[in-house]
Each structure stands twice: as structure tokens, then as C-alpha cells.
């Protein structure tokens, strides 16, 4: 007798079984319905929240991409713009000597009082300008005089000519015209004098002041003296340099570490410890990495404060575990039969991994890496601790120069006193950051599709 025969017990009658199944069927269907309901409402909730977020940000931020701009005919009066001849490098002259002369010329050009050119331009469109000189100085934002200077430096023949220019108005004028301040407030609580308000309404009606696309938002660094021309360029470049550091450092290091740990490292207590610690590292609050960065990179290695390299190093530390974990789980998911096939043909371990496992893992590795980079892009807290929240009024020319980062810029603008103006600008900066992240994610999806399509 076989084992199966000895253990035979009478089975319940088929009709009874059917009955039981029917009973349990109703219960199962009810449970399934309930679960589906819970799932759908969870999805609906999160979609609603995302929609709210986007509606809020876009409705606030989009208007900031267009700014109140005044169109003026500026006469580059030779009587005001008194500048020496632009130096030309002589045949005998050394580069250094020439650079010195050029610099002297530039600073001479910078000494000109460009505000007088602007005021002369304003006088042409405002009839009673001369009686209210102080009010006149508050219409065009103060940073625009540098725009005039840069025009002259770029083309000194401009002197003596008239040019039609679009100049940004003061931030408060933008606020007034967009209706972001209560027009019925008494004079004492208004930022603009009654005269300026009157002029501005008149100029807007005449079409001299119009909403124009604000290139300043993208081309300028942050500014505190001329709020209307505060832009994202500095923060954007800072973030870009940091991303570069993260991509060059965290991604190759993380992938290499993951390959070693997953494929080559012996399985023992030491590697277990390493594994546990990598997982823990992924859970460490990001601000702690900031402290570490301040102590190690700035304290010991004497790297500059507020520099994107340091930010990039700190963010690399933070991203490393994400990349390692993502890469390892991708490698784990590659069927072992592929490895065996290669080994069985006489490939070495290294060859099996590099010829067969890694090509299959690339989409997953790329996705993990890009998600890690996107996470780093949005990180703020550790950057505050390494000095990247300081105000920097220039676009960094390299990763070692002072700069800030996009999320930190959002934080800084959010705290600016001129709320009426910066609320919209903050949202605009958020839109730029989100756009950057979405394009990174799109890149991840595209790469994934590209490498997966082959098989």
C-alpha cells in the first residue's frame, strides 16, 4: 500500500461543498468590493491633493513670469555718458597689460550716472515729471541702470544714439498693477506715493507700461536692492553644478559599490554589517548630512563655504544609499539562469556580469540613479548648514564659487518682506524646480523605454 492510500479519509459530499463555496463566495465578494473601494478612494484622495497643489502653485506662480515693464526711448547723451575710447590690444602689448587697461575702461563706463538717462527717458512720457523728481526715481527698478551699462560696454558706438528699451518697473508697481495690494488702503499704508500711483495707472492705460515676459527671472541672479530684477539664474546654476557633482560622484560610486556587494563580496558578518549600515544611511535625516558636510568638507578639507562642490558632496553622501539600494535590487531581479548560462559557457564571473547582467540591469540602475538625483535636487535642509542659504548676488561661474540652490532660493524668497511681490515669485521658482524634476523623471522613463525596447 502506498502512503496516499493509508491516509485516505472520507471526503465531504459534493453538494455540501458547493453550498459552503457559495457561502464563502458572498463574503469574498464583499471583501473584494470593500478593498476596491478603499483603494479607489485612496487614489482619488492623492490625486485631489496633487491637483490642489498644482492649481495653487500655478495660479500663483504663472503671473510672475510676466512682469510690469515700461517702454522708454533712451537717448545715450554724450554729455552724460562721458567715456574714454575703448582700448584695443596693441601688437607689442602683453595680455596682462591689456587686461588691466580694459578693466580700467570698464570701471570708467560703470561710473556713468545711467539713472539720469532713464529719468530723461521718463520725462518724455510723463508731462509733469520735473515737478516730482523724487517720485520719478521710483518708477524704474534700480537694477536696470546696470542693464544700460552693459549695453554701452557691449557696444560703445551707442553713445549719441537713441534706443527703445523695455525696462522693468519697481516691484511695487508690479504689485499695484497686478492688483496684489488693496487699492483702497490709505496713503500711509501704500508702498507707492500717490503721484507714482497716478502716473503708473496713466502709463498702463497708454500702454507704455505693459506686462512682458520676464527674462530677468531666468537671466538674473538674486537681488535685494532691486527686487524686481531678482532672478533664479544663480540658484539654477548652483543646483546644476551640484547635480553635476552628484552625477559624477554618487552614481558611479553607488553602482560600483552595489555591483561589488551584490556579486563579489563574500557573505559574512562584515558584509552583513555593511549592508545594514547602508540601509540605515538611507534613513538618516538629511540635515545630519549637512552637519557632517560642514564639519568634514569645510572644517577639515577647507573647502569654501556656500560652494556647490560642498553641496554636491553632501548630496552625494545622501544619494549614495539610494543608488546602492536601487542598483542592488535591480541586480537581484536579473534571473540567475542568465548568469548560469554565461558561467556554463566558460565566462568568468566578471564577464558574466559585465556582458549579461549589467546590460539587463541598466534601465533599473538608471531609474534608481535619476530618482536619487531628483531627490538630491529638491533637498534643502543640508544646504542650509553649509552656508548655501546666504544671499549671493552673482551667477556662479564654477562649482567652487559661492552660490545658492533652487530649493534654498524658494525658501529665501518665501521669507522676503515684500510678500505681495515674492509670493508669486516663490511659486514661479517652485514651477521651475518642478519642471526640472519632471524633466529628470521624463528622462528616466525615456532611458528605461530605450534600453528595454531592445528585447
Amino acid at each position, binding site marked *: 500500500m*502506498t502512503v496516499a492510500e493509508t491516509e485516505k479519509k472520507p471526503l465531504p459530499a459534493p453538494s455540501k461543498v458547493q453550498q459552503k463555496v457559495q457561502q464563502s463566495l458572498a463574503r469574498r465578494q464583499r471583501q473584494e468590493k470593500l478593498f476596491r473601494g478603499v483603494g479607489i478612494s485612496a487614489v482619488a484622495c492623492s490625486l485631489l491633493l496633487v491637483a490642489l497643489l498644482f492649481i495653487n502653485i500655478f495660479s500663483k506662480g504663472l503671473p510672475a513670469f510676466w512682469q510690469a515693464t515700461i517702454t522708454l526711448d533712451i537717448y545715450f547723451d554724450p554729455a552724460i555718458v562721458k567715456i574714454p575710447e575703448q582700448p584695443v590690444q596693441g601688437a607689442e602689448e602683453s595680455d596682462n597689460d591689456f587686461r588691466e587697461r580694459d578693466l580700467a575702461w570698464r570701471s570708467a563706463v560703470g561710473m556713468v550716472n545711467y539713472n539720469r538717462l532713464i529719468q530723461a527717458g521718463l520725462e518724455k512720457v510723463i508731462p509733469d515729471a520735473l515737478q516730482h523728481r523724487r517720485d520719478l526715481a521710483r518708477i524704474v527698478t534700480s537694477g536696470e541702470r546696470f542693464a544700460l551699462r552693459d549695453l554701452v560696454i557691449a557696444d560703445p558706438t551707442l553713445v549719441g544714439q537713441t534706443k527703445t528699451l523695455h525696462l522693468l518697473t519697481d516691484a511695487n508697481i508690479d504689485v499695484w498693477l497686478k492688483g496684489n495690494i488693496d487699492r483702497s488702503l490709505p496713503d500711509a499704508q501704500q508702498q507707492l506715493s500717490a503721484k507714482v500711483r497716478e502716473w503708473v495707472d496713466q502709463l498702463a492705460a497708454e500702454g507704455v507700461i505693459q506686462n512682458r515676459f520676464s527674462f530677468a527671472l531666468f537671466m538674473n541672479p538674486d537681488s535685494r536692492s532691486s527686487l524686481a530684477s531678482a532672478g533664479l539664474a544663480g540658484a539654477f546654476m548652483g543646483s546644476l553644478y551640484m547635480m553635476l557633482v552628484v552625477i559624477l560622484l554618487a552614481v558611479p560610486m553607488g553602482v560600483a559599490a552595489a555591483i561589488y556587494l551584490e556579486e563579489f563580496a*563574500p*557573505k559574512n558578518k562584515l558584509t552583513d554589517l555593511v549592508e545594514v549600515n547602508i540601509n540605515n544611511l538611507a534613513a538618516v535625516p538629511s540635515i545630519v548630512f549637512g552637519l557632517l558636510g560642514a564639519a568634514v568638507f569645510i572644517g577639515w578639507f577647507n573647502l569654501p563655504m556656500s560652494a556647490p562642490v560642498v553641496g554636491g558632496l553632501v548630496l552625494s553622501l545622501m544619494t549614495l544609499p539610494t543608488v546602492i539600494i536601487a542598483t542592488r535590487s535591480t541586480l537581484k531581479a536579473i*534571473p540567475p*539562469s*542568465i*548568469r*548560469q*548560462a*554565461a*558561467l*556554463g*559557457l*566558460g*565566462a*568568468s564571473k566578471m*564577464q558574466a556580469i559585465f*556582458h*549579461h547582467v549589467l546590460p*539587463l540591469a541598466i534601465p533599473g540602475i538608471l531609474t534608481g540613479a535619476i530618482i536619487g538625483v531628483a531627490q538630491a535636487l529638491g533637498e534643502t535642509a543640508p544646504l542650509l548648514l553649509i552656508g548655501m542659504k546666504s544671499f549671493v548676488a552673482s551667477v556662479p561661474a564654477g562649482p567652487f564659487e559661492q552660490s545658492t540652490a533652487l530649493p534654498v532660493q524658494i525658501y529665501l524668497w518665501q521669507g522676503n518682506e515684500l510678500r505681495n511681490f515674492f509670493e508669486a515669485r516663490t511659486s514661479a521658482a517652485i514651477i521651475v524646480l518642478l519642471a526640472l524634476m519632471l524633466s529628470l523623471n521624463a528622462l528616466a522613463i525615456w532611458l528605461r523605454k530605450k534600453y528595454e525596447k531592445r*528585447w
Partner: protein
Amino acid sequence: MSNDKLQTATVTSADINDIKLQESLAATAAQPVKITARDVKVFYGDNQAIHGIDLDVYQNEVVAFIGPSGCGKSTFLRCLNRMNDTIDICRVTGEIKLDDRNIYDPTLDVVQLRAQVGMVFQKPNPFPKSIYENIAYGPKLHGLAEKKSDLDDIVESSLRRAGLWNEVKDRLNQPGTGLSGGQQQRLCIARTIAVSPEVILMDEPCSALDPIATSIIEELIDELKQNFTIVIVTHNMQQAARVSDRTAFFHLGNLIEIGATNELFTNPKQKRTEDYITGRYG
């Protein structure tokens, strides 16, 4: 009860079978020994999976390993090309020689061994690359072809010998994973023979295939015997009987019996072999 009668009947014809056995042994013994295994023990951590196995495989023969599930057939097979090396907790003791060379000799490179002893796995596992690249990978790896035309020749002849050429010659650049299960397994066999091994190990190569694909592969094994020594693990005793010259019966990590296939199936010497092949357990 009728079974017992059958058994007594075979016992009475033992003499005749004995003569047959002598003949078949003589036939295989005429061939030189290809693989010798002596006192091979395999441990998975503290668990012993193989308890000292002695076994010889002769050149150009087909040896089948049969036995109940978990008895160590795959484990022993994997010792023969050191695929067990890839399992961290696995430890092998004893001696295995290929052509008088100890394959566990530290100076021997497994890469070289695996080029000599190829393997076909239970589940077809083509690389997710083109059919051409599947075959060409091994030869490229070992530098067997100097020119592209040499490689093309190797690919064609391997596919021809695996009986796959006519089916795939127009789609060599399409993925190997797009073939049917039986075609994939023949592709894997072609891939294995492309590096011209001396021995081919097959671990249940037909278990994922339908009867027609199985019979194609069985015919293929019969042809490959001319050039290769083949060790095949199978759960299908008809298959063992059809393709192998000798059959080895494993049980609980021991080699219970090995002998000429027709002899082992008709006149097993051990009670356990008899029980297994007559279907009493397994």
C-alpha cells in the same frame, strides 16, 4: 501481484541478461575513461547532499542519472564542471578527474574546465540577445574565431548540428528569447556545442518541453554521441532507456547502482533500484 510474477520472470532470465551485460560493458569499456569520480562528497553548509560517490564516465557514451527528487543528481552533475563553485555554501571533497587531470586542482582555471565541459540547463536560458549572438558568445569569449567568416561558420554548423538551422537561418538577428521552448532548448544546446566541449552535461533538458520537442532533442543526443561524451539527468525513465548507454541510480546522496541501461531496467541488482523503476516510490 502480477508485478511479482514479472519480477521472478526477469530473474529467471538473468543468465541471458548477464551475457548481454558483459557484452555491453565490454563495448563501453573499449572506450577510454573520460571522467573519474572518487569518493565525492558534497556539503551545503552542514547538510551533506552527496555521501561519497565513485563513478566513471567513458568517452562518447551517454550516461543517464536517475533517482527520486532531491537525491543529489543535479548536485553531482554540477560537480563535474564546478558549477557548484557559484553556490557560496557548497563544499566539495574527493577527487574528480577529467582525462587524468584533477578538475579541483587549484592551478586549473574553471574557465578552461567549463570550455571543456559544457552544460545545458533544465529551463531553456538563452541570452536576451539575437540568435546569432547567443551562439557566437562562447566562441568569441574563448577566441575560437579570428575572422567574422569563421564565426559565421561556427554559428551555422552549431545550429545545424542542433537541428535548428533550417528553422532560424532567416532570423539570426532576432532575439533568441522569441523562439518556442523546444527551439530555445536546442539553441542552448547549439550554444554549448559551439565552443566544442568534450563533455556535455544536461540537467533535465526536456522537462519543460512537449513530447515532440522532447523526441527531437533525444534524436539530437543520439547524434551528438558521435562527438561528445554526454551526462544527462532525467526523471523520465523511458527517456533514460531511449538515449543512454548506461544508467546510474541515485538515492539519498548515494550512487546505488550503475550499469548498462537495458540491464539496469530489466534486471536491477539492488532492491532500491528495482523499487524505484517499478514505481514504488519516487
